[in-house]
């Protein structure tokens, strides 16, 4: 799992590259939040859904909170192009 630099900077000590066991994206965010309290809030809102200007990719496919994750999946949490 790879975090966007701007996201990792909000959590001093959080490595950009981590190995995490999770069944889906929501569970992945829960696991990240347990290690770095508040991280889930930065990625997903209270709807709940991935924030509008962030993208989560699972194995290069754009994902939502319910997207399943396999044991060898690569997950990217990236900031979207925002602004103009």
């Amino acid at each position, binding site marked *: 799992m790879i975090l966007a630099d*701007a996201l990792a900077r909000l959590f001093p000590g959080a490595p950009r590259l981590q190995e995490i066991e999770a069944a889906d994206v929501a569970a992945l965010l829960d696991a990240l939040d347990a290690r770095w*309290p*508040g991280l889930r*809030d*930065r*990625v997903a*809102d*209270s709807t709940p859904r991935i924030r509008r200007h*962030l993208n989560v990719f699972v194995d290069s496919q754009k994902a939502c909170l319910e997207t399943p994750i396999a044991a060898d999946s690569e997950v990217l949490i990236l900031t979207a192009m925002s*602004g103009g």
Partner: protein
Amino acid sequence: MSKLLLLLGTKKGAFLLEGDETRRDWALRGPFCETWPLNHVIADPATGTIWGAGGNEWFGPAVWKSTDLGRNWTHSSQGLAYPEGEEPVKTAWSLAVADGALYAGVQPAGLFRSTDGGESWEHVQGLRDHPSRPDWQPGGAGLILHGILPHPDDSAQMWVSISSVGVFHTADGGRNWAPRNRGIRCDYNPEDQRYPEMGQCVHGLAMAAGGSHRLYQQNHCGMYRSEDGGRNWQSIEEGLPSSFGFPAVAHPRDPDTLYLLPLNGDSLGRYVPDAKAAVWRTRDGGRSWQALRNGLPQEGCYFGVLRQAMAVDRLQQAGIYFGTSTGELYGSADEGESWRCLAQHLPPILSVETLYVPGHVPG
């Protein structure tokens, strides 16, 4: 030695100007908070803790916190959320310290309380339970709770300002709220509906010094004073160059003295009238007004000043400060008689507050 800090919320993070009681020299520090837009940066004078309310298009709302005068910052939004399925909180807009708690106003309009110094938040549900809420209509910048005014002596009382909705008051710690807009004009309603119970666009709300129930309000449509905690308002705009502006700042000790920064009008560009900057002061509760221009730009000046971007300090001769949409900070160390530009080329300034840090007396 004692310090005086000016706390700036800007479109690109928090900045601090650090000076002393002479208010001659200022050192700029920042930007802090990862350059997030910060709508309001305040401090608790009792502890020196600084908080910044804001939100980022990528990462949502948060309240930032520093316990070492801005050197290190943390952020939290734990509990700063509406229930699942409701429109999520987009950004935090306003902060206030009251009776040991920290309050945050957010967009879409709502109020949150923290009793652990901003680490976690609980929703003050009573405000959004008000029966008028389905009729709350967003203003130009959205449906925003942008002002929180705690009662200085009665912790159960508080006023909040919501743009295009009006002022609400609680007398029971936030369980029940009542609109406080009687006498305020709403120029955008049909002629026979210009004084509704709510729907007025409050811009700035200030309490006069002295523990009375006198409030002042800069509204989208006029300037007002209330002598009864907002139950009734009277227009005090006669003598001002415009009925439109954002901030209203009360003198720290004189209940009759108030500072405003009128802009030319809501549909005329929203800059200072005639492109000449002036702070307007009353010393008689709004019966008469004086323009304070000495040291402020008097030609080609097209900035605006937003609702939270003017502040006073509490020194013997009060200092007045305002930050502009063009990133300049102006200050007066003599109650507005003369002004200097204290900082320029900053991002658009959204809020200005002051923090006095007493020096240690050698023991």
